[in-house]
């Protein structure tokens, strides 16, 4: 049972554990670890993740931090997948335009359209708060879209 809370501690953000982890562990030692304690720790970890942010002393999020948020990396991943769809299509069917839009074209369109809500959410959520760093990530989104659009434009599909 003693090991279970240590596993649950992994649900907490790292910065939070650095600050309160030892104290929390000491308190769990003092009160004794029961299943209700484990449930309490797990629920509290989720609440901490939702309600608390790393203090400013830890520094504002870098471009990399912002890029690793779901709304940061999902659009880039979707553009990369769209590019991969084009590459696979060229390798299997060549560069000639198709008379009818096939599954590759539909998949490409879904990937390109599907990332727009993520890009919009990222811009609305982070640009007002994080300014230039968030704008740099938005520029990466725009660059990824341009990269996925370029072959379609260049090959006149």
């Amino acid at each position: 049972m003693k090991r279970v809370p240590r596993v649950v501690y992994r649900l907490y953000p790292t910065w939070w554990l650095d600050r309160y982890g030892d104290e929390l562990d000491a308190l769990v030692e003092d009160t004794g670890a029961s299943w209700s304690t484990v449930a309490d720790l797990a629920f509290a970890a989720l609440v901490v993740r939702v309600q608390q942010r790393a203090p400013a002393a830890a520094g504002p999020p870098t471009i990399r931090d912002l890029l690793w948020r779901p709304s940061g990396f999902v659009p880039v991943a979707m553009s990369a997948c769209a590019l991969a769809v084009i590459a696979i299509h060229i390798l299997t069917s060549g560069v000639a335009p198709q008379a009818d839009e096939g599954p590759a074209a539909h998949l490409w369109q879904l990937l390109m359209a599907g990332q727009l809500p993520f890009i919009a959410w990222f811009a609305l959520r982070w640009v007002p708060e994080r300014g230039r760093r968030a704008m740099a990530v938005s520029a990466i989104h725009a660059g990824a879209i341009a990269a996925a659009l370029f072959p379609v434009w260049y090959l006149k599909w």
Partner: protein
Amino acid sequence: MSDPTLLILASLAGGQKHGYAMLTDVAEFSGVALGPGTLYGAIGRLEQEGLIEAVGSTGRRRPYRITARGRKHLEAQVAALAPIIRVSARRLRNA
């Protein structure tokens, strides 16, 4: 009345305490059994808001104390709750 942040402020209004002392004090005066996760989640929030502060820089059983801002916050909470408690008690007596 079982808001952990309010219970912690009320506990620390009586003097500085570490986590375990807070748990036992809260259980004694309110009957609410806070879990360790709930307690430290609330401590983190209160400390970020400047309502409590740690006493001493290190240690696994670090005590906390209420700040002047925390005391004002608690006073405001108590003032907001007082009329509700008073009216509720009167109505229960008269019912």
